[in-house]
């Protein structure tokens, strides 16, 4: 070969272009799959109902006298069945003449941690 033959380079270039474009399409498609999946998974993963359920239960227990056995029940049940570490405490506090129960609630299920302070 006296000189390098530069004919037919179009073919290889077209080959490369098609390959790159297919690769790009595949990347885009992969992302589209993830979008839909993570929307629903995000909803499933965040323990909104569990936290609200715990809140309403704790408010009821604290307003009825804050029994220690009920607290142990709630902690054991949430740990055994919901894999969540839960604790709460209620301390009486006087603000502007009225006595409130200052309640702090802590919830941690390994992925989401939630802390709240409420005057009941």
């Amino acid at each position, binding site marked *: 070969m006296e000189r390098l*033959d530069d*004919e*037919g*380079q179009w*073919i*290889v270039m*077209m*080959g*490369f272009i*098609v*390959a*790159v474009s*297919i*690769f790009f*399409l*595949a990347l885009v*498609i*992969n992302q589209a*799959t993830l979008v*839909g*999946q993570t*929307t*629903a*998974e995000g*909803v*499933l993963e965040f323990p909104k*109902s*569990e936290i*609200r*359920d*715990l809140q*309403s*239960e704790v408010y*009821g*227990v604290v307003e009825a006298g804050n*029994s220690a*056995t*009920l607290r*142990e*029940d*709630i902690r*054991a*049940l*949430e740990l*055994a*069945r*919901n894999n969540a570490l839960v604790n709460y405490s209620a301390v009486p506090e006087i603000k502007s003449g009225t006595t409130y129960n200052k309640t702090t609630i802590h919830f941690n299920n390994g992925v989401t941690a939630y802390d709240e302070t409420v005057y009941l």
Partner: protein
Amino acid sequence: MVDDDAQLYTMEGIAAAFVILATVYLVAGTTSIYTPGDSHITDMQLEVLGNDVLLVMDTPTEEGEENNLTRYLRTWNTTDFRNEFGSLLNDRTAGTDDTLQFAASVSYRKADGTVKNENFISSERPTGYEQAVRVTRLITIPGKPTGVGTPVDFRNVPQVVMLEVLIWRD
């Protein structure tokens, strides 16, 4: 007529073809077949609805009254619970009712401190084709449930129990 001119054409064509096919093979091998179940959308819809129904049953309809869920658990009334939960779960705004199935169990703490899970309602048709979701609710009862079928190792003190319901589409 057949000679060895333009061998480079052939080689380049084969090279280009090889590049394209190799890429397609790699790409097609890494994308996954996507089924509707993989997106967990139906799971999310069932879980949201199940939590809603438990919340509706756990709210007293009049001030100062006992809510339905506490009453069913206090009296271990599986029939009324099944009817009310089933109707709230399957009611639709138009057309016929939905056909979601469910099974419920109650978790409670025994006298020795361990948590035990007992069946409350078993479903008649436990085989479905789709996955099931679990929804839970904490309920305070004033003592051991009084009703037929109550497990014997309940403590007879005010306690908090957890009702778990498995919901799946038939």
